[in-house]
């Protein structure tokens, strides 16, 4: 059976099933969400109004047995940045949607009254139901409630109280295999879902299988692909230490933004490091290895246990630990874990919010290092939607504007994550030029600037950084369309068998004959489509800039400033 587009109109509460237009056939994941948004959303619309759309799309390989292919893309116009947005996450829903034959779920319009709804997705279409029971609930309770209501195998895509309150840092969470959650984190798409008055989307479990055009070729390619992933030393390290292994290395490189981006090294780095975290998890009987969706062979996630050995948080990422740890100066992993868990439950981006806290600390709202007060504000102010809670819940830019702070690390109003662009210059190009505001995952130059993956390029040099970022952004756009987790890139950059195997997988799935150049061209087309949307929304090259303070305030230990010229940044788009 051919894949379909499921379309839901929240204005008149109708749903229909459509054929996939020819032009969208070869697309999936980010390639599809961005294409749909660019084609159907007025770039100048209010992101929280009726004209914005929310688009979910599994990747090209989601639902198959291909390793690491279970990522779900979600797109729309971001209320945080005003740009086009795609965020992807693990969890079980991408695979279910793909197996139900759903190429994309497009949600448009906006209901008039105060009623809330849930959407239930089956093979035959979407039903729109009035929802009352789960309103105001945190994500964990929502998952529990849906499991009871519809069965534990049901896929769940949900927003927490932050999304209901339309906070601009609200995310969309997806149930994982252990009934915890993974999040489409950045850009505030949870607020868009809240603006459409949808509390959650449930996806019916299915025994259907995705059709494979050439099953034998698929099997062979998958074996090669999985082997490339498993054999790769970096993916092995990811399983042992998680992404948080980066704290010590980025600190050593002098690029760990500390105390609201005033220093490049954090005195308390050991306490929050991947090494300490690993030892703590093992000592307390947590799980150092865990996957965010069935079929991941890398297992970068983990379950962090509290002192009694109980669940404290999972999917505990370097960026979050950096932000609460170094940027807010909280050298206490237990407090950071608790904060991370509250953010998961409230449904908030765990990069945007801690960076916003660091700006609030600079403003004197609370002291640097005061983890207990962070936890109180999360629960009592943000969780309850007080004015202070909403100011922080709308991100770092919102805090900066409210308190008159000039050192606000954002690009296009989205918080800069865990790598200082003054000391690691390639990533500065990615922050400046990304079609979605500051986001390290759009073109992860840290691989080549610091980790020696895909070659090496001096992080302090001005040379070659634009090209590095461009190549990575093109490759990332393509990978984000396959349903693959971005962490396959470490193997793809260094193991010659990995990328051809991935292309063979796509070819075997659809019975087509893509070559490497087609994949690169797909990446380029996606970036250009997204860029075009932003230009029509009113952005210009002058928005592709880092905040002023990076040019003026040198950062220790290298005592460097951001010194890549505006012309060089603009040359990013010469392709």
């Amino acid at each position: 059976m051919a894949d379909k587009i499921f379309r839901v109109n929240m204005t008149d509460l109708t749903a229909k099933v459509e054929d996939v237009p020819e032009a969208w056939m070869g697309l999936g994941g980010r390639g599809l969400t961005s294409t749909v948004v660019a084609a159907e959303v007025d770039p100048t619309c209010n992101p929280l109004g009726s004209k914005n759309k929310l688009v979910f799309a599994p990747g090209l390989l989601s639902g198959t047995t291909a390793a690491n292919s279970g990522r779900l893309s979600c797109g729309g116009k971001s209320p945080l940045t005003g740009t086009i947005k795609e965020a992807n996450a693990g969890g079980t829903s991408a695979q279910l949607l793909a197996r139900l034959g759903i190429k994309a779920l497009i949600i448009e319009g906006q209901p008039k009254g105060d009623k809330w709804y849930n959407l239930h997705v089956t093979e035959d279409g979407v039903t729109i139901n009035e929802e009352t029971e789960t309103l105001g609930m945190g994500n964990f309770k929502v998952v529990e409630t849906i499991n009871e209501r519809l069965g534990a195998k049901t896929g769940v895509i949900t927003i927490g109280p932050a999304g209901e309150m339309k906070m601009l840092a609200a995310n969309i969470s997806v149930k994982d295999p252990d009934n915890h959650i993974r999040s489409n984190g950045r850009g505030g798409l949870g607020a868009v879902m809240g603006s459409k008055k949808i509390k959650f989307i449930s996806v019916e479990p299915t025994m259907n299988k995705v059709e494979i055009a050439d099953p034998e070729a698929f099997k062979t390619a998958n074996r090669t692909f999985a082997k490339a992933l498993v054999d790769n030393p970096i993916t092995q390290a990811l399983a042992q230490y998680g992404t948080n292994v980066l704290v010590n290395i980025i600190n050593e490189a002098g690029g760990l933004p500390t105390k609201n981006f005033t220093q490049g090294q954090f005195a308390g780095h050991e306490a929050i490091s991947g090494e300490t975290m690993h030892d703590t998890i093992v000592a307390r009987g947590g799980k150092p290895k865990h996957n965010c969706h069935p079929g991941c062979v890398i297992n970068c996630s983990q379950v962090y246990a509290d002192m009694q050995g109980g669940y404290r948080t999972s999917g505990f990422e370097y960026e979050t630990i950096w932000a609460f740890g170094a940027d807010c100066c909280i050298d206490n992993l237990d407090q950071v874990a608790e904060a991370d868990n509250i953010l998961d439950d409230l449904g908030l981006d765990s990069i945007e919010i801690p960076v916003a806290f660091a700006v609030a600390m600079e403003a004197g709202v609370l002291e640097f290092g005061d983890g207990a007060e962070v936890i109180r504000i999360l629960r009592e102010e943000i969780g309850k939607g007080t004015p202070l809670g909403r100011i922080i819940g709308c991100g770092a830019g919102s805090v900066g504007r409210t308190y008159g702070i000039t050192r606000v690390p954002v690009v296009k109003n989205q918080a800069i994550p865990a790598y200082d662009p003054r000391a690691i210059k390639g990533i500065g190009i990615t922050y400046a030029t990304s079609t979605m505001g500051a986001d390290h995952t759009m073109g992860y130059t840290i691989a080549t600037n610091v980790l020696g993956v895909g070659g090496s390029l001096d992080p302090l040099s001005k040379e070659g950084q634009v090209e590095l970022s461009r190549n990575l952004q093109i490759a990332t756009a393509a990978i984000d369309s396959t349903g693959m987790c971005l962490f396959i890139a470490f193997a793809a950059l260094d193991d010659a068998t990995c990328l051809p195997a991935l292309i063979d997988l796509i070819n075997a799935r659809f019975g087509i004959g893509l070559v490497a150049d087609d994949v690169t061209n797909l990446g380029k087309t996606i970036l250009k489509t997204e860029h075009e949307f932003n230009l029509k929304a009113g952005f210009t090259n002058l928005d592709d800039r880092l905040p002023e303070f990076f040019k003026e305030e040198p950062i220790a230990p290298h005592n460097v400033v951001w010194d890549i010229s505006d012309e060089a940044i603009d040359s990013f788009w010469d392709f």
Partner: protein
Amino acid sequence: MQFNVKLFAYFRDNRFKERLSEYPEGTTVEDVIRSLDIDLEEVGVLMINSRHCTLQQEPQEGDQLAIFPVVGGG
């Protein structure tokens, strides 16, 4: 001549986190790694004083040499 060696991730197992030791003049980074019985193949990133360095470089008095296995994240 004395300089400080810092180890990371599993390189610390049965070794140390950080150690200030005496080395003869002309000691290279590679010499240090061999003396610690670390497999050169497993070495990912090397830095002297927070700058990437090569195996042939010679740390100087008071330097900080950091030795990381192949690691990644993001």
